[in-house]
Protein backbone atom coordinates (compact mmCIF):
# COMPACT_ATOMS: atom_id res chain seq x y z
CA UNK A 1 0.00 0.00 0.00
CA UNK A 2 1.03 3.53 -0.68
CA UNK A 3 0.42 6.34 1.68
CA UNK A 4 -1.76 9.21 0.55
CA UNK A 5 1.23 11.50 0.47
CA UNK A 6 3.08 9.19 -1.90
CA UNK A 7 0.17 8.87 -4.26
CA UNK A 8 -0.39 12.63 -4.17
CA UNK A 9 3.24 13.10 -5.07
CA UNK A 10 2.94 10.67 -8.00
CA UNK A 11 -0.09 12.50 -9.26
CA UNK A 12 1.59 15.86 -8.98
CA UNK A 13 4.56 14.56 -10.93
CA UNK A 14 2.27 13.17 -13.61
CA UNK A 15 0.48 16.49 -13.84
CA UNK A 16 3.54 18.70 -13.96
CA UNK A 17 5.40 16.52 -16.45
CA UNK A 18 2.60 15.83 -18.91
CA UNK A 19 -0.14 18.42 -18.51
CA UNK A 20 1.39 20.78 -21.04
CA UNK A 21 2.03 17.98 -23.52
CA UNK A 22 -1.54 16.68 -23.17
CA UNK A 23 -2.99 20.12 -23.83
CA UNK A 24 -0.93 20.32 -27.02
CA UNK A 25 -1.99 16.81 -28.05
CA UNK A 26 -5.64 17.74 -27.59
CA UNK A 27 -5.25 21.10 -29.30
CA UNK A 28 -3.77 19.47 -32.40
CA UNK A 29 -6.92 17.40 -32.67
CA UNK A 30 -9.56 19.87 -31.57
CA UNK A 31 -8.09 23.01 -33.08
CA UNK A 32 -9.31 24.97 -30.07
CA UNK A 33 -7.14 25.91 -27.10
CA UNK A 34 -10.01 26.44 -24.70
CA UNK A 35 -11.61 23.06 -25.28
CA UNK A 36 -8.18 21.45 -25.13
CA UNK A 37 -7.61 23.01 -21.69
CA UNK A 38 -10.98 21.80 -20.44
CA UNK A 39 -10.49 18.27 -21.67
CA UNK A 40 -6.94 18.13 -20.30
CA UNK A 41 -8.36 19.06 -16.87
CA UNK A 42 -11.10 16.47 -17.21
CA UNK A 43 -8.51 13.86 -18.11
CA UNK A 44 -6.53 14.46 -14.93
CA UNK A 45 -9.73 14.44 -12.88
CA UNK A 46 -10.47 10.98 -14.30
CA UNK A 47 -6.97 9.84 -13.39
CA UNK A 48 -7.47 11.07 -9.83
CA UNK A 49 -10.80 9.31 -9.59
CA UNK A 50 -9.22 6.03 -10.68
CA UNK A 51 -6.85 6.11 -7.68
CA UNK A 52 -4.23 4.06 -9.46
CA UNK A 53 -1.33 2.74 -7.49
CA UNK A 54 2.29 2.87 -8.49
CA UNK A 55 3.99 4.61 -11.33
CA UNK A 56 2.73 4.37 -14.91
CA UNK A 57 4.89 2.62 -17.45
CA UNK A 58 3.80 4.77 -20.36
CA UNK A 59 2.06 7.80 -18.90
CA UNK A 60 1.48 9.60 -22.19
CA UNK A 61 -0.19 6.64 -23.86
CA UNK A 62 -2.33 6.27 -20.75
CA UNK A 63 -3.31 9.93 -20.63
CA UNK A 64 -4.02 10.18 -24.33
CA UNK A 65 -6.25 7.11 -24.29
CA UNK A 66 -8.36 8.67 -21.52
CA UNK A 67 -8.38 12.01 -23.36
CA UNK A 68 -9.37 10.29 -26.56
CA UNK A 69 -12.42 8.73 -24.91
CA UNK A 70 -13.42 12.09 -23.45
CA UNK A 71 -13.07 13.66 -26.87
CA UNK A 72 -15.20 10.95 -28.45
CA UNK A 73 -17.86 11.46 -25.74
CA UNK A 74 -17.79 15.18 -26.39
CA UNK A 75 -18.24 14.81 -30.16
CA UNK A 76 -21.05 12.37 -29.64
CA UNK A 77 -22.85 14.48 -27.05
CA UNK A 78 -22.54 17.60 -29.16
CA UNK A 79 -23.88 15.90 -32.29
CA UNK A 80 -26.87 14.51 -30.36
CA UNK A 81 -27.66 17.78 -28.61
CA UNK A 82 -27.55 19.73 -31.83
CA UNK A 83 -29.63 17.21 -33.74
CA UNK A 84 -32.18 17.12 -30.91
CA UNK A 85 -32.56 20.90 -30.89
CA UNK A 86 -32.95 20.99 -34.65
CA UNK A 87 -35.57 18.27 -34.62
CA UNK A 88 -37.47 20.09 -31.85
CA UNK A 89 -37.35 23.31 -33.84
CA UNK A 90 -38.98 21.53 -36.78
CA UNK A 91 -41.88 20.07 -34.83
CA UNK A 92 -45.26 21.21 -36.16
CA UNK A 93 -46.44 22.18 -32.65
CA UNK A 94 -44.05 24.06 -30.39
CA UNK A 95 -43.28 21.96 -27.32
CA UNK A 96 -42.17 23.25 -23.96
CA UNK A 97 -39.70 20.92 -22.31
CA UNK A 98 -38.25 21.43 -18.87
CA UNK A 99 -34.44 21.36 -18.54
CA UNK A 100 -34.70 18.17 -16.46
CA UNK A 101 -36.76 16.36 -19.07
CA UNK A 102 -34.45 17.58 -21.77
CA UNK A 103 -31.45 16.28 -19.90
CA UNK A 104 -33.10 12.88 -19.47
CA UNK A 105 -34.02 12.67 -23.14
CA UNK A 106 -30.53 13.59 -24.30
CA UNK A 107 -29.04 10.98 -21.96
CA UNK A 108 -31.39 8.34 -23.34
CA UNK A 109 -30.61 9.27 -26.93
CA UNK A 110 -26.88 9.19 -26.17
CA UNK A 111 -27.19 5.72 -24.75
CA UNK A 112 -29.13 4.41 -27.75
CA UNK A 113 -26.67 6.08 -30.12
CA UNK A 114 -23.80 4.40 -28.30
CA UNK A 115 -25.46 0.98 -28.44
CA UNK A 116 -26.14 1.23 -32.17
CA UNK A 117 -22.82 2.75 -33.13
CA UNK A 118 -20.90 -0.02 -34.77
CA UNK A 119 -23.89 -1.70 -36.37
CA UNK A 120 -24.15 -1.65 -40.15
CA UNK A 121 -26.79 0.55 -41.74
CA UNK A 122 -29.22 -2.31 -42.37
CA UNK A 123 -29.41 -3.98 -38.92
CA UNK A 124 -29.43 -0.53 -37.30
CA UNK A 125 -32.29 0.65 -39.39
CA UNK A 126 -34.28 -2.57 -38.91
CA UNK A 127 -33.78 -2.38 -35.16
CA UNK A 128 -34.99 1.23 -35.01
CA UNK A 129 -37.96 0.55 -37.29
CA UNK A 130 -39.09 -2.25 -35.00
CA UNK A 131 -38.26 -0.72 -31.62
CA UNK A 132 -38.82 2.99 -32.16
CA UNK A 133 -41.20 3.26 -35.08
CA UNK A 134 -43.14 0.22 -33.81
CA UNK A 135 -43.33 -1.53 -37.19
CA UNK A 136 -43.94 -5.28 -37.44
CA UNK A 137 -41.36 -7.51 -39.13
CA UNK A 138 -43.83 -8.00 -41.99
CA UNK A 139 -44.14 -4.23 -42.53
CA UNK A 140 -40.37 -3.83 -42.39
CA UNK A 141 -39.83 -6.66 -44.85
CA UNK A 142 -42.24 -4.98 -47.31
CA UNK A 143 -40.60 -1.60 -46.95
CA UNK A 144 -37.10 -2.94 -47.46
CA UNK A 145 -38.14 -5.53 -49.99
CA UNK A 146 -36.45 -8.39 -48.14
CA UNK A 147 -37.81 -11.56 -46.54
CA UNK A 148 -39.25 -11.57 -43.02
CA UNK A 149 -36.55 -14.06 -42.14
CA UNK A 150 -33.84 -11.59 -43.18
CA UNK A 151 -35.48 -8.91 -41.04
CA UNK A 152 -35.53 -11.31 -38.11
CA UNK A 153 -31.87 -12.23 -38.60
CA UNK A 154 -30.73 -8.60 -38.75
CA UNK A 155 -32.89 -7.69 -35.77
CA UNK A 156 -31.41 -10.46 -33.64
CA UNK A 157 -27.91 -9.41 -34.64
CA UNK A 158 -28.62 -5.81 -33.71
CA UNK A 159 -30.27 -6.72 -30.45
CA UNK A 160 -27.46 -9.09 -29.46
CA UNK A 161 -24.99 -6.29 -30.07
CA UNK A 162 -27.05 -3.97 -27.83
CA UNK A 163 -27.25 -6.60 -25.12
CA UNK A 164 -23.47 -7.01 -25.21
CA UNK A 165 -22.95 -3.29 -24.75
CA UNK A 166 -25.80 -2.42 -22.42
CA UNK A 167 -24.21 -4.27 -19.50
CA UNK A 168 -25.90 -5.51 -16.33
Amino acid sequence: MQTDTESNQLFENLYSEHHHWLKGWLKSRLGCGEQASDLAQDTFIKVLAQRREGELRSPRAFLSSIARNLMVDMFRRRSIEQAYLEVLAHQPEPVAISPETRYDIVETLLEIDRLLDDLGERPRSIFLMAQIDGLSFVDISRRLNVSVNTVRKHFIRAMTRCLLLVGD
Partner: protein
Amino acid sequence: MSTQLDRAVLEAAAAWYVDLRDTGAEDPLREAHRQWLAQHPAHRQAWARVEKLQRTLDAAPRAITRSTLDSARATRRQAIKALSLVLVAGVAGAAWRYRGGVDELTADYRTAIGGSAQATLSDGSLLRLDTASAVDIRYGDQLREILLHSGEIHITTAPDAAGRPFIVHTRHGSIRALGTAFLVRSDDRQARLGVLRHAVEIRLAERPGQPTRLDAGQQVHFTRWRAETPQPLPAGADAWTRRLLVVSDWPLRQFLDELSRYHRGRLSCDDAVAGLRISGAFHLDDIHAVLGNLTATLPIRVRYLTRYWARVEAAGKSDI
Protein backbone atom coordinates in the same frame (compact mmCIF):
# COMPACT_ATOMS: atom_id res chain seq x y z
CA MET B 1 -19.18 -5.41 -11.82
CA SER B 2 -20.85 -7.21 -14.67
CA THR B 3 -19.83 -10.75 -15.38
CA GLN B 4 -19.02 -11.84 -18.90
CA LEU B 5 -22.02 -13.28 -20.68
CA ASP B 6 -21.61 -15.60 -23.60
CA ARG B 7 -22.55 -14.14 -26.93
CA ALA B 8 -24.61 -17.28 -27.61
CA VAL B 9 -26.70 -16.69 -24.48
CA LEU B 10 -27.37 -13.07 -25.47
CA GLU B 11 -28.30 -14.17 -28.95
CA ALA B 12 -30.73 -16.70 -27.46
CA ALA B 13 -32.25 -13.96 -25.26
CA ALA B 14 -32.69 -11.75 -28.34
CA ALA B 15 -34.36 -14.63 -30.20
CA TRP B 16 -36.69 -15.17 -27.24
CA TYR B 17 -37.55 -11.51 -27.29
CA VAL B 18 -38.47 -11.73 -30.96
CA ASP B 19 -40.55 -14.88 -30.49
CA LEU B 20 -42.45 -13.42 -27.56
CA ARG B 21 -43.08 -10.06 -29.21
CA ASP B 22 -46.50 -10.93 -30.57
CA THR B 23 -47.65 -13.70 -28.24
CA GLY B 24 -50.37 -13.42 -25.62
CA ALA B 25 -49.99 -14.18 -21.92
CA GLU B 26 -51.50 -17.65 -22.39
CA ASP B 27 -49.28 -18.72 -25.27
CA PRO B 28 -47.40 -21.99 -24.61
CA LEU B 29 -44.21 -20.22 -25.68
CA ARG B 30 -44.39 -18.20 -22.45
CA GLU B 31 -44.09 -21.40 -20.44
CA ALA B 32 -41.16 -22.54 -22.56
CA HIS B 33 -39.54 -19.17 -21.93
CA ARG B 34 -40.06 -19.55 -18.17
CA GLN B 35 -38.33 -22.91 -18.34
CA TRP B 36 -35.46 -21.41 -20.28
CA LEU B 37 -35.07 -18.74 -17.59
CA ALA B 38 -35.11 -21.39 -14.85
CA GLN B 39 -32.40 -23.41 -16.58
CA HIS B 40 -29.42 -21.20 -15.80
CA PRO B 41 -28.49 -18.00 -13.95
CA ALA B 42 -26.85 -16.73 -17.15
CA HIS B 43 -30.21 -16.93 -18.92
CA ARG B 44 -31.81 -14.78 -16.22
CA GLN B 45 -28.91 -12.34 -16.36
CA ALA B 46 -29.25 -12.05 -20.14
CA TRP B 47 -32.99 -11.52 -19.83
CA ALA B 48 -32.43 -8.78 -17.26
CA ARG B 49 -30.37 -7.03 -19.95
CA VAL B 50 -33.25 -7.37 -22.41
CA GLU B 51 -35.48 -5.62 -19.88
CA LYS B 52 -32.87 -2.95 -19.22
CA LEU B 53 -32.51 -2.27 -22.93
CA GLN B 54 -36.28 -2.10 -23.24
CA ARG B 55 -36.52 0.47 -20.46
CA THR B 56 -33.98 2.67 -22.25
CA LEU B 57 -35.85 2.38 -25.54
CA ASP B 58 -39.19 3.07 -23.84
CA ALA B 59 -37.78 6.26 -22.34
CA ALA B 60 -37.03 7.63 -25.82
CA PRO B 61 -39.78 9.87 -27.21
CA ARG B 62 -41.06 8.10 -30.35
CA ALA B 63 -41.64 11.23 -32.41
CA ILE B 64 -38.13 12.63 -32.35
CA THR B 65 -35.79 9.73 -31.61
CA ARG B 66 -35.31 8.36 -35.09
CA SER B 67 -34.74 11.72 -36.76
CA THR B 68 -32.39 12.89 -34.00
CA LEU B 69 -30.26 9.74 -34.12
CA ASP B 70 -30.07 9.73 -37.90
CA SER B 71 -29.22 13.39 -38.07
CA ALA B 72 -26.53 13.13 -35.37
CA ARG B 73 -24.94 10.25 -37.25
CA ALA B 74 -25.05 12.17 -40.52
CA THR B 75 -23.49 15.24 -38.86
CA ARG B 76 -20.59 13.18 -37.62
CA ARG B 77 -20.04 11.78 -41.12
CA GLN B 78 -20.03 15.31 -42.54
CA ALA B 79 -17.53 16.43 -39.94
CA ILE B 80 -15.21 13.63 -40.99
CA LYS B 81 -15.50 14.56 -44.65
CA ALA B 82 -14.53 18.13 -43.89
CA LEU B 83 -11.31 17.20 -42.09
CA SER B 84 -7.92 17.61 -43.61
CA LEU B 85 -4.83 15.55 -42.98
CA VAL B 86 -3.27 15.65 -39.55
CA LEU B 87 -0.21 13.65 -38.63
CA VAL B 88 0.40 12.90 -35.00
CA ALA B 89 2.47 10.36 -33.12
CA GLY B 90 1.09 6.96 -32.19
CA VAL B 91 -1.07 6.21 -29.19
CA ALA B 92 -1.49 3.09 -27.12
CA GLY B 93 -4.86 2.30 -25.68
CA ALA B 94 -7.57 -0.05 -24.59
CA ALA B 95 -9.42 -2.64 -26.64
CA TRP B 96 -10.91 -1.28 -29.79
CA ARG B 97 -14.36 -1.24 -31.25
CA TYR B 98 -15.81 0.85 -34.02
CA ARG B 99 -17.73 3.93 -32.89
CA GLY B 100 -19.62 5.19 -35.94
CA GLY B 101 -17.88 8.30 -37.06
CA VAL B 102 -16.36 9.55 -33.87
CA ASP B 103 -13.01 7.78 -34.16
CA GLU B 104 -12.22 9.26 -37.54
CA LEU B 105 -12.29 12.69 -35.92
CA THR B 106 -9.55 11.85 -33.48
CA ALA B 107 -7.47 9.42 -35.54
CA ASP B 108 -3.67 9.50 -35.59
CA TYR B 109 -3.53 9.65 -39.38
CA ARG B 110 -6.31 10.75 -41.62
CA THR B 111 -6.83 12.07 -45.13
CA ALA B 112 -9.55 14.25 -46.60
CA ILE B 113 -11.57 13.30 -49.68
CA GLY B 114 -9.18 13.29 -52.62
CA GLY B 115 -6.18 13.35 -50.28
CA SER B 116 -3.39 10.85 -49.76
CA ALA B 117 -0.56 10.44 -47.29
CA GLN B 118 2.26 8.16 -46.35
CA ALA B 119 4.24 7.58 -43.20
CA THR B 120 7.09 5.41 -42.01
CA LEU B 121 6.14 3.88 -38.68
CA SER B 122 8.54 3.46 -35.78
CA ASP B 123 9.46 -0.12 -36.78
CA GLY B 124 10.16 0.91 -40.38
CA SER B 125 6.88 -0.39 -41.79
CA LEU B 126 5.44 1.82 -44.50
CA LEU B 127 1.85 3.06 -44.28
CA ARG B 128 0.08 4.71 -47.20
CA LEU B 129 -3.41 6.21 -46.92
CA ASP B 130 -5.84 6.59 -49.79
CA THR B 131 -8.67 9.14 -49.98
CA ALA B 132 -10.93 9.77 -46.95
CA SER B 133 -9.11 7.32 -44.69
CA ALA B 134 -8.45 7.25 -40.95
CA VAL B 135 -6.17 5.00 -38.91
CA ASP B 136 -4.76 4.76 -35.43
CA ILE B 137 -1.39 3.24 -34.67
CA ARG B 138 -1.14 1.14 -31.53
CA TYR B 139 2.35 -0.22 -31.07
CA GLY B 140 2.83 -1.98 -27.75
CA ASP B 141 5.25 -4.42 -26.12
CA GLN B 142 3.49 -7.45 -27.56
CA LEU B 143 1.87 -6.34 -30.79
CA ARG B 144 2.05 -3.86 -33.63
CA GLU B 145 -1.57 -2.93 -34.26
CA ILE B 146 -3.19 -0.65 -36.81
CA LEU B 147 -6.84 0.33 -36.47
CA LEU B 148 -8.39 1.13 -39.84
CA HIS B 149 -11.51 3.16 -39.07
CA SER B 150 -12.45 3.79 -42.68
CA GLY B 151 -10.94 4.18 -46.12
CA GLU B 152 -8.09 2.25 -47.67
CA ILE B 153 -4.48 1.68 -46.68
CA HIS B 154 -1.43 0.06 -48.22
CA ILE B 155 0.98 -1.59 -45.81
CA THR B 156 4.51 -2.80 -46.37
CA THR B 157 5.62 -4.45 -43.15
CA ALA B 158 9.19 -4.35 -41.92
CA PRO B 159 10.68 -7.21 -39.92
CA ASP B 160 10.49 -6.36 -36.23
CA ALA B 161 13.51 -6.74 -33.95
CA ALA B 162 11.20 -7.66 -31.06
CA GLY B 163 9.30 -10.17 -33.23
CA ARG B 164 5.93 -8.50 -32.51
CA PRO B 165 3.12 -9.65 -34.81
CA PHE B 166 1.66 -7.00 -37.14
CA ILE B 167 -2.14 -6.79 -37.15
CA VAL B 168 -4.62 -4.52 -38.94
CA HIS B 169 -8.03 -4.29 -37.28
CA THR B 170 -11.16 -3.28 -39.16
CA ARG B 171 -14.69 -3.32 -37.81
CA HIS B 172 -15.30 -6.39 -39.96
CA GLY B 173 -12.31 -8.39 -38.84
CA SER B 174 -8.56 -8.49 -38.27
CA ILE B 175 -5.69 -9.19 -40.63
CA ARG B 176 -2.41 -10.58 -39.45
CA ALA B 177 0.54 -10.01 -41.71
CA LEU B 178 2.86 -12.90 -42.42
CA GLY B 179 5.76 -10.73 -43.70
CA THR B 180 3.98 -8.85 -46.44
CA ALA B 181 2.63 -6.02 -48.50
CA PHE B 182 -1.14 -5.74 -48.68
CA LEU B 183 -4.12 -3.44 -49.18
CA VAL B 184 -7.11 -3.09 -46.85
CA ARG B 185 -10.27 -1.12 -47.49
CA SER B 186 -13.06 -0.87 -44.93
CA ASP B 187 -16.37 0.96 -44.91
CA ASP B 188 -19.86 0.61 -43.40
CA ARG B 189 -20.76 -2.40 -45.43
CA GLN B 190 -17.67 -4.52 -45.76
CA ALA B 191 -13.91 -4.80 -45.86
CA ARG B 192 -11.72 -5.75 -48.79
CA LEU B 193 -8.27 -7.25 -48.54
CA GLY B 194 -5.77 -7.63 -51.37
CA VAL B 195 -2.42 -9.36 -50.87
CA LEU B 196 0.53 -8.08 -52.91
CA ARG B 197 3.36 -10.15 -51.40
CA HIS B 198 3.57 -13.30 -49.27
CA ALA B 199 0.44 -14.02 -47.24
CA VAL B 200 -1.88 -12.80 -44.49
CA GLU B 201 -4.36 -14.37 -42.11
CA ILE B 202 -7.92 -13.02 -41.63
CA ARG B 203 -10.11 -13.39 -38.57
CA LEU B 204 -13.69 -12.22 -38.94
CA ALA B 205 -14.96 -10.12 -36.04
CA GLU B 206 -17.66 -12.65 -35.22
CA ARG B 207 -15.61 -15.76 -36.04
CA PRO B 208 -12.28 -15.05 -34.37
CA GLY B 209 -11.58 -18.73 -33.81
CA GLN B 210 -11.40 -19.59 -37.50
CA PRO B 211 -8.53 -17.80 -39.24
CA THR B 212 -8.25 -18.12 -43.01
CA ARG B 213 -5.15 -17.53 -45.07
CA LEU B 214 -4.91 -15.42 -48.18
CA ASP B 215 -1.91 -15.56 -50.50
CA ALA B 216 -0.24 -13.05 -52.79
CA GLY B 217 -2.28 -12.20 -55.87
CA GLN B 218 -5.60 -12.82 -54.13
CA GLN B 219 -8.37 -10.51 -53.02
CA VAL B 220 -11.33 -11.13 -50.72
CA HIS B 221 -14.36 -9.17 -49.51
CA PHE B 222 -15.55 -9.82 -45.98
CA THR B 223 -17.97 -8.67 -43.28
CA ARG B 224 -18.09 -9.37 -39.56
CA TRP B 225 -19.77 -12.70 -40.23
CA ARG B 226 -18.72 -13.90 -43.63
CA ALA B 227 -15.85 -13.94 -46.09
CA GLU B 228 -16.57 -14.33 -49.77
CA THR B 229 -14.64 -16.67 -52.05
CA PRO B 230 -11.18 -15.22 -52.80
CA GLN B 231 -10.66 -13.87 -56.31
CA PRO B 232 -7.59 -12.89 -58.29
CA LEU B 233 -6.35 -9.45 -57.25
CA PRO B 234 -7.10 -7.10 -60.17
CA ALA B 235 -4.07 -5.52 -61.83
CA GLY B 236 -3.77 -1.94 -60.68
CA ALA B 237 -5.45 -2.52 -57.31
CA ASP B 238 -2.62 -0.57 -55.69
CA ALA B 239 -2.42 2.08 -58.42
CA TRP B 240 -3.86 4.67 -56.02
CA THR B 241 -0.51 4.70 -54.27
CA ARG B 242 0.72 6.35 -57.49
CA ARG B 243 -2.40 8.56 -57.62
CA LEU B 244 -3.89 6.55 -60.48
CA LEU B 245 -7.13 4.68 -60.93
CA VAL B 246 -6.51 1.70 -63.22
CA VAL B 247 -9.54 -0.16 -64.52
CA SER B 248 -10.18 -2.87 -67.04
CA ASP B 249 -13.60 -3.34 -68.61
CA TRP B 250 -15.57 -1.69 -65.79
CA PRO B 251 -19.18 -0.57 -66.19
CA LEU B 252 -19.42 3.23 -66.19
CA ARG B 253 -21.46 3.32 -62.98
CA GLN B 254 -18.90 1.31 -61.04
CA PHE B 255 -16.19 3.57 -62.42
CA LEU B 256 -18.04 6.70 -61.29
CA ASP B 257 -18.69 5.20 -57.84
CA GLU B 258 -15.00 4.53 -57.45
CA LEU B 259 -14.07 7.97 -58.78
CA SER B 260 -16.48 9.64 -56.37
CA ARG B 261 -14.47 8.31 -53.43
CA TYR B 262 -11.88 10.87 -54.49
CA HIS B 263 -14.32 13.65 -55.22
CA ARG B 264 -15.86 16.11 -52.81
CA GLY B 265 -19.29 16.09 -54.35
CA ARG B 266 -21.64 13.87 -56.27
CA LEU B 267 -21.07 11.91 -59.46
CA SER B 268 -24.06 10.16 -60.92
CA CYS B 269 -25.08 8.72 -64.26
CA ASP B 270 -28.20 7.93 -66.24
CA ASP B 271 -29.25 4.29 -66.47
CA ALA B 272 -28.94 4.54 -70.24
CA VAL B 273 -25.15 4.89 -70.03
CA ALA B 274 -24.48 3.03 -66.75
CA GLY B 275 -23.43 -0.14 -68.55
CA LEU B 276 -20.88 1.38 -70.97
CA ARG B 277 -17.48 -0.27 -70.48
CA ILE B 278 -14.32 1.56 -69.54
CA SER B 279 -10.66 0.61 -69.49
CA GLY B 280 -7.65 2.76 -68.80
CA ALA B 281 -5.50 4.60 -66.28
CA PHE B 282 -6.81 7.88 -64.88
CA HIS B 283 -5.13 10.57 -62.81
CA LEU B 284 -6.86 11.06 -59.49
CA ASP B 285 -5.58 14.59 -59.01
CA ASP B 286 -8.07 16.16 -61.39
CA ILE B 287 -11.48 14.50 -61.41
CA HIS B 288 -12.97 17.13 -63.72
CA ALA B 289 -10.30 16.37 -66.32
CA VAL B 290 -11.04 12.64 -66.05
CA LEU B 291 -14.69 13.33 -66.73
CA GLY B 292 -13.71 15.53 -69.66
CA ASN B 293 -11.57 12.76 -71.16
CA LEU B 294 -14.41 10.28 -70.93
CA THR B 295 -16.52 12.36 -73.27
CA ALA B 296 -13.81 12.01 -75.93
CA THR B 297 -13.94 8.21 -75.94
CA LEU B 298 -17.55 7.39 -75.01
CA PRO B 299 -20.91 8.57 -76.43
CA ILE B 300 -21.61 10.58 -73.32
CA ARG B 301 -21.57 14.09 -72.01
CA VAL B 302 -21.12 15.50 -68.54
CA ARG B 303 -23.64 17.94 -67.17
CA TYR B 304 -22.75 19.98 -64.12
CA LEU B 305 -25.83 20.63 -62.01
CA THR B 306 -23.50 22.46 -59.66
CA ARG B 307 -19.71 22.36 -59.51
CA TYR B 308 -20.05 19.54 -56.98
CA TRP B 309 -22.74 17.58 -58.70
CA ALA B 310 -21.90 16.14 -62.09
CA ARG B 311 -24.21 13.87 -64.03
CA VAL B 312 -23.12 11.72 -66.95
CA GLU B 313 -25.71 11.32 -69.69
CA ALA B 314 -26.02 9.99 -73.24
CA ALA B 315 -24.43 12.44 -75.67
CA GLY B 316 -27.55 13.05 -77.75
CA LYS B 317 -29.81 13.92 -74.87
CA SER B 318 -31.27 17.39 -74.98
CA ASP B 319 -31.52 19.78 -72.06
CA ILE B 320 -34.52 19.49 -69.82
